[in-house]
Every structure is written in structure tokens, then in C-alpha cells.
């Protein structure tokens, strides 16, 4: 079992009243609402948390989101570069540069190859489909996003793997006539590749490709659906059963000395769901290309027709959750080390095992000191026991 620390570097310090009155906390909040001095502190605290992870043997996820309180990591390759130089031990998963928003995947491959060399092969590459306000913030056409996503992955894989001099790509969305990376990546043919998705169709394609499928904050049912599709697609294609290291579960985690402390402080993590996900309708339900038009009647109406189900984006079902609900839905593991170990293993058993646990360990008003305390307890008290128990089950 590999454990991964995930921290979005959120910026909660915008007055509540402004956030409540804004129709969106992404894409449109004026930059003057951010204090660069606070942002600087946050960047350094978050980097220090990552360096603590490096010391105690917890891997690190480097993420990307744009133009909102939910994350300050818009320039994701820069953060990855800093981690590449400052860490010494653990693996770094860039999950990831939002590739369907970038004009030239070859340049993304170049960034990743450089990071992998600096990391001496400690890089994992995660792809994220992106969507909603990210499309607007990056001027990326939301229609055709998925096509660009897969073509970009194909091109990045080709660029990273190529060692035979200039090669070319003239695809539908991307064209680059001379591809020849220097440096090539440290790992051959390229770093392990992941994708974060809970969408069963995307998981099916990941299964056929043998990529790692992380599922972020979808809970047990959503994760089961995705991984079930992954396994099914491999079976249909006549491919061998996937190993557990192809699956990554992600939830909020907070470990305290006591259950009370774990839940009380852990509940601060839910700020991410309850405050930072709000998006204006033009960035969400009315954004073109984000769902088949046949679903529009259930999405566009302000009130469903009698007998009609309402369709919302997966994140909408998470807004307004309490700590108890999040723990019950196994989106959050919180308590003392013993409780958290049991919660993790319960999810592990329900899902038939997974090789990676990504934990959101800091968000919202959870402080740097609180985050570091949980990281230390996780590494010292929880991870060894989880590893022991998962090894026992594998035997």
C-alpha cells in the first residue's frame, strides 16, 4: 500500500459574505481578494508539509486547479519543479497538468521529462480530464475536451518514449512536426501513468491501457462503478486481471490523538466540499459539451417535471456534507490512529483492495500545525498497520 498526501493549497481567507453572495468561487473572484503575503505563507507551509512527507515516507501528489479559492496551484509545473529539487526520497504524482487545457502536449512532456530527471525517476504522471470553470479560465473549448484528453495522452506517451531522434505527430487536435525531448525521462520508457476519474467509460479505457485509476472523493459506490468498469473492459479485451496497484482510492483523512480530535479537526477538511465547489451555472450546468444533450431536460430545468430524476454533477452530491455523513460514506477517515486504520481497512475490504490511498490532508481552515500532526501520526501509527494488514490479506 502506497500512501499519498494531497493538498490543494486552498485559499479560504475571503470574507464569508463575499463567498456567499458570489455566484461562483472559481473563475470570477477578483484577484484583489487574495493577499499575496498570505498566499506566500501558504505556499511555503504546503511545501513544508510535502517535505515532512518526504521525511516520513509518504508520497506526494502535486495538483492543478485554476483561478479560485479551491486551489492556488494553477502553475502546477512550477510547484512540481520545486518539489523535484527539494524532496529526496518519496515519489511525486503530478495529478496533474490539465492536458486538455494546454496548447502543446509536447511541451507538457518536456516538463515531465525534466521533472523525472531531477527526481531521478521518482515521478508518476496523473492525467485529469478537467472541465467546468477550468475551461473558461483557460480558454479551452469544452466541446471536444475528452477527444483532446486522449490524443494529448497518446502524444505525451509518444514524446516521452521516443529515443530515436525527431519524430512527428499530426493528429486531429495537435500537430508537432519535430519531437525530440532532451532530456528524455529518467524512467524507461516513461513514468507510470495515472488518470483521476470516476466516470465508468473513462475507467474502461484506462483498463484497456493498464493505467492507474485514481478515484477522487466519489465514495465507495462511485469507486466501485469505476473500478468495475476498468476490470470488465480488461476482461472483455482478453487482458490479464489488473493488480491492486492499478487502483487508488482518495478521501479526506485526519488522524488525531483521540477520535474527538480527529473528527473535530478533520471536519475542517470539508470546507473543500462545502465552500470551494460553488460554480456559476454558465460554468457548470449550462457549459456546452459537458453532458449529452439528451440529459439537458433534467439539468436545465429549475424544477424537475413530476416523476423526473434530477441530474447533477458528482460534486453537487457532496456539497453540504457533515463529518458524520462523510465518514459514513467513507469519503473521510477521521479519528485516532486505531479508528482511522479500521476505517481505511473497511474501505479496502469493501472495494476488494487497492494499492494506493490518496489522502486530502489539508484544506480550508485546517492549519499547517494540524496538518503536520496528522501526517506524523499517519506515518508512525497508521501506515505500518495498514501495510501489515493489507499484506496479510494478500497472503
Amino acid at each position, binding site marked *: 500500500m502506497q500512501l499519498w498526501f494531497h493538498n490543494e493549497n486552498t485559499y479560504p481567507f475571503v470574507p464569508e459574505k463575499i463567498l456567499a453572495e458570489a455566484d461562483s468561487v472559481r473563475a470570477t473572484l477578483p484577484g484583489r481578494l487574495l493577499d499575496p503575503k498570505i498566499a506566500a505563507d501558504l505556499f511555503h507551509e504546503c511545501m513544508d508539509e510535502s517535505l515532512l512527507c518526504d521525511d516520513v515516507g509518504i508520497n506526494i501528489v502535486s495538483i492543478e486547479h485554476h483561478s479560485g479559492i479551491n486551489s492556488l496551484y494553477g502553475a502546477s509545473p512550477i510547484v512540481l519543479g520545486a518539489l523535484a529539487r527539494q524532496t529526496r526520497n518519496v515519489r511525486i504524482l503530478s495529478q496533474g497538468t490539465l492536458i486538455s487545457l494546454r496548447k502543446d502536449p509536447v511541451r507538457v512532456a518536456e516538463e515531465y521529462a525534466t521533472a523525472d530527471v531531477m527526481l531521478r525517476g521518482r515521478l508518476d504522471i496523473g492525467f485529469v480530464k478537467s472541465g467546468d470553470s477550468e475551461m473558461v479560465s483557460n480558454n479551452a473549448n469544452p*466541446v471536444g475536451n475528452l477527444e483532446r484528453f486522449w490524443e494529448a495522452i497518446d502524444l505525451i506517451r509518444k514524446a516521452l518514449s521516443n529515443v530515436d531522434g525527431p519524430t512527428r505527430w499530426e493528429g486531429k487536435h495537435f500537430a508537432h512536426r519535430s519531437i525530440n525531448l532532451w532530456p528524455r525521462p529518467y524512467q524507461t520508457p516513461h513514468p507510470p501513468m495515472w488518470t483521476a476519474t470516476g466516470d465508468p467509460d473513462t475507467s474502461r479505457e484506462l483498463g484497456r491501457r493498464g493505467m492507474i485509476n485514481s478515484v477522487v472523493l466519489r465514495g465507495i459506490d462511485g469507486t466501485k462503478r469505476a473500478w468495475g468498469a476498468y476490470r470488465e473492459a480488461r476482461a472483455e479485451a482478453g487482458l490479464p486481471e489488473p493488480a491492486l496497484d492499478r487502483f487508488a482510492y482518495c478521501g479526506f483523512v485526519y488522524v488525531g490523538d483521540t477520535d474527538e480530535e480527529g473528527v473535530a479537526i478533520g471536519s475542517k477538511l470539508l470546507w473543500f466540499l462545502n465552500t470551494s465547489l460553488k460554480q*456559476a451555472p*454558465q460554468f457548470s450546468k449550462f457549459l*456546452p459539451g459537458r453532458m449529452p*444533450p439528451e440529459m439537458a*431536460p433534467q439539468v436545465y430545468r429549475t424544477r424537475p417535471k413530476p416523476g423526473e430524476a434530477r441530474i447533477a454533477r458528482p460534486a453537487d452530491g457532496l456539497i453540504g456534507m457533515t463529518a458524520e455523513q462523510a465518514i459514513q460514506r467513507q469519503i473521510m477517515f477521521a479519528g485516532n490512529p486505531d479508528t482511522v486504520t479500521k476505517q481505511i481497512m473497511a474501505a479496502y475490504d469493501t472495494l476488494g483492495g487497492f494499492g494506493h490511498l490518496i489522502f486530502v490532508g489539508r484544506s480550508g481552515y485546517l492549519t499547517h500545525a494540524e496538518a503536520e500532526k496528522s501526517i506524523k501520526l499517519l506515518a508512525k501509527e497508521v501506515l505500518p498497520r495498514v501495510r501489515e494488514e493489507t499484506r496479510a490479506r494478500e497472503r
Partner: protein
Amino acid sequence: MIARETQNFHGIELEVLRGGAGHPILVLHGMHPLTPAAPFLTRLASLGAVTAPSFPGFGDSPKPKDFETVFDIVHLTRAILDAAGGPVTLVGLSFGGWIAAEVAAQGHPNIGRLVLADPLGIKIGGPEDADIFDIYNNSPADTRAATFHDPERFGPDFDEMDDSDIIRYARDRDALCLYSWNPYLYNPQLPRWLGRIAVPTLVCWGESDGIVTPDYGRAYAKLIQGARFATIAGAGHCPEIERPDDLAALIAAFVGG
């Protein structure tokens, strides 16, 4: 009486609305195709033989795989004009006005006259000027207000619309977005070529158009030699919906004169 048919142009199947007889009038739709019940089409059908195709992805027209640019639509429109057999009055509304302007700038023997109503397709201002109101980045309420003179009466009400109409509406939005996300609803090169339009041209503009303002319209008309410019009171970006009689009357006078 306007009928809905399907017709094939260069192997591409399109939904086509038809009605009337006589002088051929080809109508290129705006952000959403008109319906057979649209009063504007009925009025035009009293002037001549109206053909109003829905571009691929819009209305009930399928979108062929990899048909995804304005370039494709311009070529398709040329194929539609080829099939007309003789000179038509080409009427382009909003997005269809952009297409009509592109085709007319290239020249086609079957364009007899050109009518552009609130056409998109060019950029007039500088890099910091939002010449064209952004229907994707602004709230639905602001977009309604920018689109219609009387948004309460003419704006879409999804709670009242049938499922099939909402699905068509969503298809239209996806298609328009595919074709026009970036550059946003314009071709940077088009102003250079508008001067090549060699047929009599009428440019009409809704006085309350907040998507592209009447000033944008005046600048547009100036780029087309000899173009007449007329505004329509009580209409926003879609005079064909808010003032169908007035727009049809302008077209009738233009065709008759």
C-alpha cells in the same frame, strides 16, 4: 405553411425547413434554428420559396464525424447554393450572418442579394474590447438580457419547454460552441475580404442588440461596399423572433427594390 424535410448536400444530411414559391430565399440560422411555426419564415414564404437548413449539429441535423469548423460550414453552404440552381436572396441571421458574409466574400454565382441581420464574424475593437457578448462566460440571466429586447417574453423558459425542445436547444449550444469557441465567434481575416462582396447587401440590426451592438453593425456594414444599414426598433439580437414582420418588410422592400 412551412414543412420540415431532410435533404442531402455533398453527402451530408440536413434538416431543412421549406415553404412558399417563387423567388428563392435561403435562410441561414442564428444561434438556434427557427421552427416551422416561426412567423418570420411564414412571412418570407409569402415573398418567395424559402429554404432554411439547420447546420450539422444544430436542430435535428446530425453532425458528421470530424465536421467541426466554420470552414466546413462555409463549404457546405456553397454546396447548398450550388443546388439552388439560380440566384437566391441569401439571408444570414447572427451566426448564419457570419457564414453568409464568408460565402459572399468568396463570391458565388447563386447569390443574387445578401441580407445580414445582426451578423457575427468580425472583430472591430482592440484586444481589450468585448465586441461580442460572451454567452459562455456570462450568467444565463445576463445572456438573456443581452439577447432580447423583451427577455421575459422571448427568452427560453426551460421549465415550460418540452424535453425535445430542450434537447435541441442543448444540441445547438454544443454545436455553436464547437464551431466558435476560439476565436470567439469571429474570423480575424474576414474584415479584409468583406470588401469583395459584390452583390446588393442589406444589413439589419436590432436596436436593443446586446450581443453585438448597432455600432458594431454600422462598422460591419461600412466594410461592405454600398451596403444599406437599417435598425429595427423593439428587437435585440434576434429580430426574426422579436420583430418578424419588420424584418420581413425590410427584406421585401430590399428584394422588390
